[in-house]
């Protein structure tokens, strides 16, 4: 007996795509429930804790939005490359490089700029440039040398993380940090406008504007059109006159720039200082978010918010039920797994053949 996968001739409908995403979330939630049950806790109370604070209260909602921001930037960053089936796993590194560049600018490059209207755009450009550079490297290696971008982007993440570690443990260690690896605080001019004391900041608005910009880019420009063609079939794209090499580099550079701006916004909007492990792996969660949103920039806003809620809710789980927050990592893993499985079921017909 053999199991055979046959490719379906028709593409999956929008409704079935939406349903499969929903079912994937449900499967992951059920798995999560069983894990919680095995820990001796009530899964329904856990579901309630996961959302009641993060979505049902004003401070919780604000926290969820603050957590959404870095996720949204990095998801948009990977989404562009994913459109042409280019597997950019490097959002984490691009995000870190953006944060590094913003810190460099705020603390060392422009100490004499006291006007936020000059400082903030400069930092944003700097963050975008370094994020873009971190996308450009794997892009050019893929385009001209055929280096697998999954490996190169993944490896470059570590380079960026260790670069940040080196700076914060070494030359950038701030005064008054008592030898802790943390830089000095950003000057007031390098801080994005804050609304209230809950952490609500202008970076969140930038991230949403960015989603609409990406929508415009992929839907209404020639670049987006080319991405679509190359994503369907690379060779067909070449025949149709798309410069695939240029397109690969461009997709990586633009994606990197968006993730880099995300790093800048996290520094200038939320944390105000660079330190090791400042990201709990936003750039990796971004891969799951982009998939769950089926590479739709507007859906990405909704899904990023959902994951922001999960991050805040997992703290609540820990505080009130003493459930380890690493459970959310397990949830993310199961979710990606069921998403990929649903993809197979939608695109392939599975036949059992008797031999």
């Amino acid at each position, binding site marked *: 007996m053999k199991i055979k996968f046959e490719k379906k001739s028709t593409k999956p409908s929008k409704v079935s795509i939406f349903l499969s995403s929903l079912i994937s979330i449900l499967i992951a939630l059920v798995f999560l429930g069983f894990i919680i049950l095995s820990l001796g806790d009530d899964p329904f109370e856990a579901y309630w804790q996961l959302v009641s604070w993060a979505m049902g209260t004003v401070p919780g909602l604000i926290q969820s939005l*603050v957590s959404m921001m870095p996720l949204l930037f990095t998801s948009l960053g990977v989404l562009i490359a994913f459109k042409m089936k280019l597997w950019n796993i490097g959002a984490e590194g691009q995000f870190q490089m953006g944060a590094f560049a913003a810190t460099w600018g705020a603390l060392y490059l422009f100490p004499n700029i006291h006007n936020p209207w000059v400082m903030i755009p400069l930092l944003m450009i700097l963050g975008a440039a370094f994020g873009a550079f971190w996308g450009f490297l794997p892009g050019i290696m893929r385009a001209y040398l055929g280096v697998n971008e999954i490996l190169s982007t993944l490896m470059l993440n570590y380079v960026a993380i260790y670069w940040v570690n080196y700076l914060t443990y070494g030359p950038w*260690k701030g005064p008054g940090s008592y*030898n802790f690896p943390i830089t000095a605080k950003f000057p007031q001019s390098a801080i994005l406008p804050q609304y209230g004391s*809950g952490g609500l900041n202008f970076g969140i608005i930038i991230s949403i504007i960015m989603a609409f910009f990406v929508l415009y880019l992929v839907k209404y420009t020639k670049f987006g059109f080319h991405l679509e063609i190359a994503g369907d079939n690379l060779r067909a794209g070449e025949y149709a006159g798309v410069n695939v090499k240029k397109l690969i580099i461009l997709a990586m550079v633009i994606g990197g720039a968006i993730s880099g701006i995300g790093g800048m916004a996290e520094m200038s909007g939320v944390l105000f200082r660079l330190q090791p492990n400042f990201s709990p792996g936003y750039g990796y969660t971004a891969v799951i978010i982009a998939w769950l949103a089926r590479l739709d920039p507007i859906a990405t806003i909704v899904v990023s918010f959902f994951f922001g809620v999960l991050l805040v809710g997992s703290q609540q789980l820990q*505080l009130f039920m*003493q459930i380890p927050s690493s459970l959310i990592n397990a949830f993310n893993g199961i979710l990606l797994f069921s998403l990929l499985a649903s993809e197979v079921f939608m695109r392939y017909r599975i036949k059992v053949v008797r031999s």
Partner: protein
Amino acid sequence: MKKYLFLILLTLIGLYVFAAPLKVAFIYVGPVGDDGWTYAQNLGRLYVQNYFGDKIQTTYIESVPTANAVNVLKQLALNGYNVIYTTSFSYMDQTAEVAKLFPNVIFENCSGYLTGPNMAVYFGRIEEAEYLTGLIAGSMTKTDKIGYVAAFPTPEVIRGINAFALGVQSVNPKATVQVVWVNDWYNPPNEKEAALSLISAGCDVIKSETDSPAPLQAAESKGVYCIGYNTDQSSYAPKTFLTASVFNWGTYYKDDIQAILDGKWKTHNFWGGLDSGVVGLAPMSNLVPPQVQNLVNAMENAIKTHSFNPFSGPIYDQSGKLMIPAGQSLSDQDLLSMNWFVKGVIGSISK
């Protein structure tokens, strides 16, 4: 009639307020299962929960990244927690920032220095216990090389290393203390590597200061003596464990929470030594010869009764410069900002 209703209502509210348990939260820098710093803190939490019973309700959140501390603190304050202990220096700034937003909540930071009307700090003079462990290490070494696995070069850690080295030298002037920085509080693989590298460099006593028992396990596997930190970790190295300098946080939390329940809490900067019971020595193993045990007990008594201070001169720094002249000792202010090693310590403080 209305008046009475109002009075009854007020009494009911009063009853509810007084009957509601005090909600106490602890923020931990590592996992409770680290069997080190956070484990010791959690023992303190369990101790007060048990001691006060229904009068308090405690919770904790473990492995909180510094970047997330503000969020967690706000979440706790908004969820009705009355007292929040942040148990690492790395949360001090964030605690002070959130304390300003919630004047009715009591915040306390362990090992920090910033205080406010509703924010206190507390710590133990672990260096007093470290001096005692130094006496043991200095007596037990044969190669005259002792290895010290340390986390970050913060003043707290530097004080501990210096006191340890002073203890070592008072019984064995030739011995040196070699320091390796792990640059993490809790990182078992790196802690283990640090211990192994010290052992291969000829050290025959390993002193750990980081949060996990990994350095002790490494020492045990190589048949080398070891001395722990935070809690009695003898079960991790039953054959070579000598003792450990330990924190007994429960004694502090008990007094502090009692003061809060009695309405007598005031902001403070608590820094208790061996005399307060917040720091101490784990039981010494049979490997430590009786005459050394007697010496340690005598010195412990001398420190408790303030007739001896480990940081009394003459004390020289690594370059041989006289830092504390004879007849003088360091002030608390000097101790809190200590950023130099005493003579006999091999290692550097990156500045």
